[in-house]
């Protein structure tokens, strides 16, 4: 899977969980929580949906790496061997 594909899947899942967020103007380096309403339950749902969608297991201890879009792309590319 390419990084572009990972990026678009991540954005799609974000859009499912928090459709009120303005994802077009997302700063990829900043944490989601600092940019739109995204509470800890959203965060958990986000991780669980990514797990299902990408058929991977994300250990809780690694979840902080998924706090921003850049973080997600780096972590998931690593995980998927992209």
């Amino acid at each position, binding site marked *: 899977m390419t990084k572009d594909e990972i990026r678009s899947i991540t954005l799609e899942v974000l859009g499912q969980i928090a459709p009120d967020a303005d994802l077009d103007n997302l700063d990829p380096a900043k944490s989601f929580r600092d940019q739109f*309403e995204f*509470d*800890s*339950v959203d965060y958990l749902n986000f991780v669980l949906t990514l797990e299902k969608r990408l058929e991977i297991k994300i250990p*809780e201890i690694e979840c*902080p790496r998924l706090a921003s879009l850049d973080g997600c792309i780096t972590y998931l590319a690593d995980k998927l061997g992209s």
Partner: protein
Amino acid sequence: MTPDTVPPNLTDYATTCQEFSWQAARHELDGLPGGAGLNIAYEAVDRHLRKGQGNRVALRCIGGDGHSEDISYARLSELSNRFANVLQSLGVEPGAAVYALLGRTPALFFTALGTWKHRGVFCSLFSAFGPEPIHTRLSIGKGGVLVTTASLYARKVAALRDSLPDLKHVLIVDETDTPLPEGTQDFSQLLAAADEDFAIGPTDPTAPALLHFTSGTTGEPKGAVHAHEAVVAHHASGRFALDLHPQDVFWCTADPGWVTGVSYGVIAPLTIGATLIVDTADFDAQRWLRILQDQKVNVWYTAPTAVRMMMRLGIDVLHRYDFSSLRFLASVGEPLSPDAVYWGEQAFGLPLHDNWWQTETGAIMIANFRAMDIKPGSMGRPLPGVQAAIVYRRDDGGVDLAEEANQEGELALRPGWPSMFREYLGEPERYQKCFAGGWYLTGDLARCDDDGFFWFVGRADDVIKSAGHLIGPFEVESVLLEHPAVAEVGVIGKPDPIVGQVVKAFVVVKPGHEGDEMLQRALLAHARKRLGAAVAPREIEFRTYLPLTRSGKIMRRLLKAWELGLPEGDTSTLLKQD
């Protein structure tokens, strides 16, 4: 002192219950000098200064970057004096409501304590609420003062300010140099300009001090009012149920927007003279473990949702930390499942003690105590001074008591404890309905076993408990109904292994609209913007009809049966609309 050398405050349950009286508990506190009454802020802060304890650390505030700042009892006294003077200079009358819309920040403490010193009524709103719940709660309480941040104000209040005629003063707490929004004042500047001395006026112990909003199945949120003398119950329950001692480092993780965050995140531990951890950042499981370790927390009061999120980390991760300072762990918000109690033992070497209370009771009523064997899954036994029973409402307005142990019924409390709510603001009839046959009826279904331990069974109404937040289905349904595509909506709590219940909405669309993924997202977005993420539904399901009673009310019981695949039960009053 090491944790096991600190003796429990409550050692002999039966004897303490027998000897306890609320009058005697009141004498554990000082009262205002000269017999001028009882004021929460004096008991929480000023009295420690008179005993030469002013230099002790009251608040240890931890920023998002891990940097911490200590605030002593003396400094807390001074800053709350300043805020009381600010209220006076703004012409705010004693008895008026002062609102805070803040996270866990030092300003929240100055605002709360200063409001009580001024003899105002403090009301803290959950900062994750969207504009709609905030507007409703400010309107009901006729809030004249609001302390908040520039960002929260811009996102959640500014657009509705014109429809809040009572809101005269908005004070902005800000860490950054952003310009002040129009129609607001700078909190820090006002504090700096105010006098650092303030003499608390005579305070009637029964005068209103706290306003907490809670939700019912129907209608608007209810504003439960508590009096200054609630502090007697905060202090006593902090000692008995949380085993708080003056030398303790105490961490209550509850948000100040809910009753736990005020009763035990502010009042109780300060009256005891403990050091409070104030973590300003959002939940992060590993950060929390670091705080428990690095701050040498002795007593930790948290919630089942946080516990279950931490359980996901795996026990190996927890064993990398040093929790040797911990002495007592407690939990509230939803029932704590036995596996979470056992997890506490594995993770920290200590079990988690569940306890039970609600907004209306103002303080912990039923608890598993330190010096008592825990029954995992049970909420524990009534506190000294609290009489609890299982009852059944009769049609004539009276109640029957359960005749045997283990019978399920409604949990009831005998009125008389000092933190009992005194009214639902402006709704005397709704208040009266909570009492029958000389008991306060809690709306929770429970049973009491042969040993006198209470077990939670469920809610008697349709109120939803999600991640520790009480959510009224009506408030969510009203907002969804405002969307042009929605014809009918019913909202329920769907059981969830982590957060207890998630808010789920069943929606019937209007003709000409399609119940597809696009609409589902549009409705989610609409609800999240108006209600905030914590209150909005996490799931929406479209249906061609909803079960209604003959009088046209949504039957949420049947929606739950749909969700869980249960038999629908008695449907004789059901009117199906195909």
